[in-house]
């Protein structure tokens, strides 16, 4: 007799999770130079989302988030959001090496309906650099969430910014990948800091431990699709040894609240 809850039982057998609100807080559209992907287009990702039962994917462009073509990447995501309402929620990638254009690009994307920011340390600037400040000021004013790529070392910068900009909800991408305890500490210290969980190495019981330490309300499902496999990342939550209510919070309800969807 199976002891699995209804989410786990269906995930174990690859059945669609239709009644579970699922928002993937971390995804990308487009191609990138480091590897081939067949999920570059909105239509291709939608097929996978529908196979699993994912309602909404929050996206930034590969070429903007991890590359230099921020206008192109932002446009790809804005177009997907406009073409498939409710299925994509687009981040505005902030490119700090073009400081004169930061606010201008945010305003351009706001006109297209975007209301969240993505920042990435690949762009070479610490997250407390002056070039980012106009973007944070705008996000703080408007209550936009900011998804920040992190690999552990950026947490001190985020800590400073989370204090300075309390109306921003800071989502820490790849939480736990390094300095696991530091992620727990910052999420405990700041009400406006959340742990987004995608990592290719799917650390054993990370999700359970995060929930035990900081509470299910502070943990968000993200996949990093198409960098990573959304079907793989989903199992870290759907089959985790946590309650069904905690799974629902992590898989979608927290993001619904944070993104006001």
């Amino acid at each position, binding site marked *: 007799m199976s002891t*699995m809850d*209804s989410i786990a039982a269906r*995930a174990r057998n*690859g059945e669609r999770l239709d009644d579970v609100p699922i928002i993937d807080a971390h995804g990308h559209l487009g191609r990138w130079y480091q590897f081939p992907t067949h999920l570059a287009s909105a239509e291709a990702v939608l*097929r996978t989302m529908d196979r699993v039962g994912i309602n909404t994917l929050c996206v930034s462009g590969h070429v903007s988030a991890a590359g230099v073509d921020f206008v192109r990447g932002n446009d790809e995501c804005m177009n997907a959001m406009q073409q498939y309402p409710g299925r994509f929620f687009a981040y505005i990638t902030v490119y700090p090496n073009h400081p004169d254009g930061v606010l201008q690009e945010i305003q351009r994307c706001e006109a297209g309906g975007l209301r969240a920011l993505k920042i990435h340390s690949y762009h070479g600037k610490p997250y407390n650099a002056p070039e980012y400040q106009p973007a944070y000021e705008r996000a703080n004013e408007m209550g936009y969430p900011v998804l920040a790529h992190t690999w552990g070392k950026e947490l001190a910068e985020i800590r400073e910014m989370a204090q300075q900009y309390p109306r921003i909800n800071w989502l820490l991408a790849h939480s736990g990948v390094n300095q696991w305890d530091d992620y727990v500490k910052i999420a405990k210290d700041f009400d406006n800091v959340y742990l987004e969980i995608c990592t290719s190495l799917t650390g054993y019981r990370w999700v359970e431990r995060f929930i035990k330490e900081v509470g299910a309300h502070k943990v968000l499902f993200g996949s990093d*699709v198409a960098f990573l496999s959304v079907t*793989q990342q989903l199992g870290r939550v759907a*089959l985790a040894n946590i309650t069904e209510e905690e799974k629902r919070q992590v898989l979608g309800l927290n993001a619904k609240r944070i993104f006001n969807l």
Partner: protein
Amino acid sequence: MSGQFPGQDDCDRLSAVNLILNRMEPLMALRLYDCNAAIGRRLNAPAATPTSVAELLTEMDRLEIDSAMVSHFSGCESEPLLGNEMLDNEVGDHPRLKRAWTALPDTGGDMPPAAEFVDQLLQSGARSAWIFPKRMNWSLEEWCAGSLLRALQERRVPTLLPFDQTDCNELHAVLSAYPRVPLILTAMPYRSNRVLLPLLEIHANLHVDISPPFAVSEGLEEICWRAGASHLLFGTGYPTNEPGASITQLMYADLSEEERSLIAHGNIERLLEEVIA
């Protein structure tokens, strides 16, 4: 699927449907055979990381994983012969577990001759071997690994090799020289498809364990399309990784049921049947 976020009414209705469905005849869960599980203490593992056979079996029960090929961390992080002995003692001939020894060549004078060692492995009841050339400071070149690779090939021993212990050119050379060693790549990085896919197309004896970090988007589908489902093995990387990740990666993949079944258990069972004990 609707573009709208489901409201509570939708969720209640769908829950009711699921309740009805769940009361119908339960579907038979696809049998899962994990090719990559481990026991023992590990260097730098987080506190409370499971170490025992009992904990492994509990997790397999929780996730409905039927069988596993299991190695011992002491074999790769402490001393291979000690690790193999501990593995034999702790796992024994458990009906759901098949032991995977750690192997290395006899070039250092601290191991039995390769053919004798592989014979010992099989006599013990183990049915597969892990190799760590870089970590244990030996080479996969013929002059160093030839006797071991010949012995593994003669007895068709499934041989697990973490990708960071080799490189694609060396791998191509080994697979070309020893086409009947059932080689299983583990710990495949998710950015490796530009070298992995051609290797799989060339070498029928190359297999990939889907354990993390093999997190390629639609990666199983791509390998099935390019090289065939016979190359893929379900693995979890327990207890380094969360086993649920590999389960959903396989179960939600856009595959035929025949392909899924081969990956879930059929391929590893075939490889184990082909071992010349």
